[in-house]
């Protein structure tokens, strides 16, 4: 894979703030790829995006885009465009004027071509007929579409998206995620997409870069984070629950809950005698009512199709999602099996 964008050893601190905001971040993107920068609040993902865009400068390291070193260049000279969490539309302009804002001011095209390109962009974003409207007349989703179109009109080498859908309701968010993917396929647009939502990252990105405390913990395909987390932080971020201390002895995992041989786990990567956490996904419960495991329900929180239950079992409290067709009340006994495919082990 040849690198189209290359972030090399990026370090960043803020004055008056303890510790590094970004530490030794290395990341590459191929042309036409979407990479999601994922992490909790304060993990440094927006700072990294701002460094790429030129709105912030790094203390150390360099940013190379399409063979050109961007360090020291102002944002307007970088051939990147950014879409922010807020749509940041220019309220004094119409939808069309917002969309062709940058090429119009930079006289990038002849007037007729600018008009044609604006119309094409409106069509691409399903905003035909909105060109002459004031942006104050748009809904939240339409505003974000215009913001996206305004960035795409500059034909950037790299599109930077900073949580562009986080303020939208869930249905609109998924619809726009599909559109962003579609735009990526149709235009071959390279994108760096910041989000704190792992489902959003999994839906939109070819690869996910997971930032943990300013360090790039891992870059992998989205499903690998879900099925094979490498650290406790990763496991927690990607929806794993039930972290039970364990160790590896004679090829088996030993914990307070008992000994297990997990066929899906490549134990060769783990070393005997070291501490680990056995992680169990909440969706691991099956054969409810007839399984070999049993416990007492401590609390039950309905979640639509399932009920998230805290179950006292073998000296541990497990969080498991049980099918909603079974009614579970605190204090009741419940039996179940656990799907070994939804077990995983991470270093403690």
């Amino acid at each position, binding site marked *: 894979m040849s690198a189209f964008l290359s972030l090399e050893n990026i370090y960043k601190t803020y004055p008056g703030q303890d510790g590094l905001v970004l530490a030794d971040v290395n990341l590459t993107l191929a042309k036409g790829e979407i990479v999601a920068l994922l992490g909790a609040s304060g993990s440094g993902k927006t700072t990294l995006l701002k460094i790429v865009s030129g709105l912030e400068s790094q203390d150390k390291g360099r940013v190379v885009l399409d063979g050109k070193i961007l360090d020291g260049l102002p*944002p*307007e000279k970088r051939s990147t*465009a950014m879409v*922010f969490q*807020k749509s940041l539309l*220019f309220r*004094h302009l119409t939808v069309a004027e917002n969309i062709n*804002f940058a090429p119009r001011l930079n006289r990038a095209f002849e007037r007729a071509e600018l008009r044609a390109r604006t119309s094409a962009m409106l069509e691409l974003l399903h905003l035909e007929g909105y060109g002459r409207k004031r942006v104050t007349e748009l809904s939240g989703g339409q505003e974000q579409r215009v913001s996206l179109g305004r960035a795409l009109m*500059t034909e950037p080498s790299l599109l930077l998206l900073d949580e562009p859908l986080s303020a939208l309701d869930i249905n609109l968010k998924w619809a726009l995620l599909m559109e962003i993917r579609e735009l990526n396929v149709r235009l071959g647009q390279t994108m760096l997409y910041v989000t704190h939502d792992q489902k959003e990252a999994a839906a939109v990105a070819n690869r996910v870069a997971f930032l943990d405390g300013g360090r790039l913990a891992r870059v992998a395909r989205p499903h690998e984070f879900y099925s094979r987390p490498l650290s406790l932080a990763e496991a927690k971020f990607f929806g794993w629950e039930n972290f039970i201390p364990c160790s590896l002895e004679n090829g088996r995992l030993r914990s307070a809950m008992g000994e297990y041989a997990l066929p899906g786990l490549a134990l060769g990567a783990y070393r005997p005698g070291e501490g680990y956490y056995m992680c169990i996904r909440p969706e691991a419960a099956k054969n409810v009512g007839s399984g070999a495991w049993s416990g007492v329900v401590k609390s039950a929180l309905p979640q639509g199709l399932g009920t998230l239950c805290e179950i006292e079992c073998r000296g541990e409290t497990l969080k498991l999602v049980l099918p909603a067709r079974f009614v579970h009340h605190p204090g009741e006994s419940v039996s179940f099996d656990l799907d070994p495919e939804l077990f995983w082990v991470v270093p403690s």
Partner: protein
Amino acid sequence: MKRARGLILAVAGIVLLFPLAPLLLWSFTTYWRWPVVWPNFDGGHWLRLIADGRILPALGNSLLLSTLITCFALALSFFPAKILGTRNFRGKRLLELLLLVPAFIPQISVVFGMQQVFMKLGLYSNFPGTLTANLVFYVPYATLLLAAVFEDYDIALEEQSRTLGVGRLKTMVFVTLPAVRSGIIVTGVFCFIGSWAVYLLNNVVASPRFHTLPGVIFPLVSVGNNSYSTIATAIIIYILPVLFLLFITSKALASAGNLTKHNIL
């Protein structure tokens, strides 16, 4: 709702403009006192004041002076106000208090000192001196007003523009200025009206060689040998430019919510 708003505007208009009606009538009469009910209309006072040779040059001086004070005050205060309104830094509150000083301290306590300094600098009783003296008061005033405007301004709009490939200057012209346009107009109007009415400062620093309209009209009003009609005519000449300015900027004044929110106005 729309009807109630119209009614309120109509009442406000009557209350504000009603006092002007007798002035306007008086300015076109020769004699209109009890028991005369129907006055003799005559435009003589207008002609006499215009022919007087002092009013028109003073009107021109005042128009030029207030316009330049407004322009300079806006230009000089724009960037400091933007920093004050959009950034947090150590000493910001102290700086805001210092900017309030010219508004708090009575002018009379400083104008005579200014007169001495301006005499030494060759700025006494001339146009540049009068302009400079006024700017000492109106630059901090405009800075405070505009800072309040910038407190409601989202600096991310500029970041957005620049990441789209638009340079600093174009961003300022096509993003920043339109976003704070109403606030700039309101600040300008207040600087113009404030400087239009300056009497003491101009009297001390500008007289005797340079005259502004208040400097000519106030003695005319206070000297007892003038009729109501002459005074009314002079006052109409004095307030007409301000009314005209308010009229052409009324839309911006109506949207000055950000200034009123911060209790600046």
